[in-house]
């Protein structure tokens, strides 16, 4: 359940950046290959926000797809599975997107 510490990191980072401002909402980006389950973050979010400037804030999570490039045949393709495999059969694949775990923006009063 690393999502609890991930969510705690989100709330800590926002309170650090935003000071005393009341935060109404949070937009996150959790890539499909990040190893973090968005719904587990949603589950933790309200609990972690309680008693902070984020209490009651809404949460929006964008889930960018995984992208990869094959080092053997140079094909670029979509990858939703953390086991990288090119349609050509090669596993020599570089993941180019989908691992991000970012706080994009917040909405404040």
């Amino acid at each position: 359940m690393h999502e609890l510490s991930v969510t705690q990191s989100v709330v800590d980072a926002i309170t650090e950046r935003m000071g005393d401002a009341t935060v109404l909402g949070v937009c996150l980006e959790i890539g499909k290959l990040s190893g973090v389950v968005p719904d587990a973050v949603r589950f933790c979010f309200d609990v972690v926000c309680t008693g902070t400037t984020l209490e009651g804030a809404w949460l929006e999570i964008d889930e960018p797809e995984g992208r990869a490039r094959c080092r053997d045949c140079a094909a670029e393709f979509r990858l939703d599975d953390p086991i990288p495999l090119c349609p050509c059969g090669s596993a020599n694949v570089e993941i180019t997107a989908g691992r991000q775990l970012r706080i994009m923006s917040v909405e404040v009063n």
Partner: protein
Amino acid sequence: MCQTCGCSGDGAVIAEPGHQHEHEQHEHEHGHEHGHRVSLEQDVLAKNDLLAEHNRRWLTERGVLAVNLMSSPGAGKTTLLERTAREADLPMAVIEGDQETMLDAERIKAAGAPVVQINTGAGCHLDAAMLDRAVHTVEPAPGSVLFIENVGNLVCPALFDLGEEQRVVILSVTEGQDKPRKYPHMFASADLVLLNKVDLLPYLDFDIAAFLRDARRVNPDVEVVRLSATRGTGLTDWYSWLREHRPHFAGPAHGSAGGSAGQKRR
């Protein structure tokens, strides 16, 4: 549970063998109260990663090889470290991570290596802040190997950079050969995989060729060493690996070792 199709909506896909189908995630719109938007665009784990870099710099400046050792509970991390402390003839120190108890630290201490125990309580992994505190408690000697025995767990520790130089994943053959496919994040982040308890292979259906194929599907360049920490099989390969990766440390005061270990991939 979703009333339309029965999916749980929590990212977990529930399917029967032979009847697998994928659900699209359902979007749930909420009536949001909107103020004004402030763009932050920062990594969620930025603080951890910053601390991890700080740890990495501190360790490399002292020529300390930090090894993050990860596995399921019971795969043989502590047994391997006990044996390494007794036999490898390498200066070493150990940071033990467990939810509770000093049991592992006591075993390492009895084997003769300096050790500190981190008890994470409810936590399922170590993070860079815990390592920072533990490193300054155990104070690894310049030029030594610092083993960080992570909490037994094949999921969460993969995500958290501690500032280590090398990531080593142990899989014991009793766990089954399919683990790289089941826990790809962990195996993808490994620099070395130790296949432990190979003395039990005659009693098991473990298919080493299939294991190697799966491990290299998630991590094409990963090295694999086969060993038995209890019987002593294959340990010279492990000790050689440690010696190869230990920085060429010049002396006790200001070693020229170090180098610039970049951010490790997760």
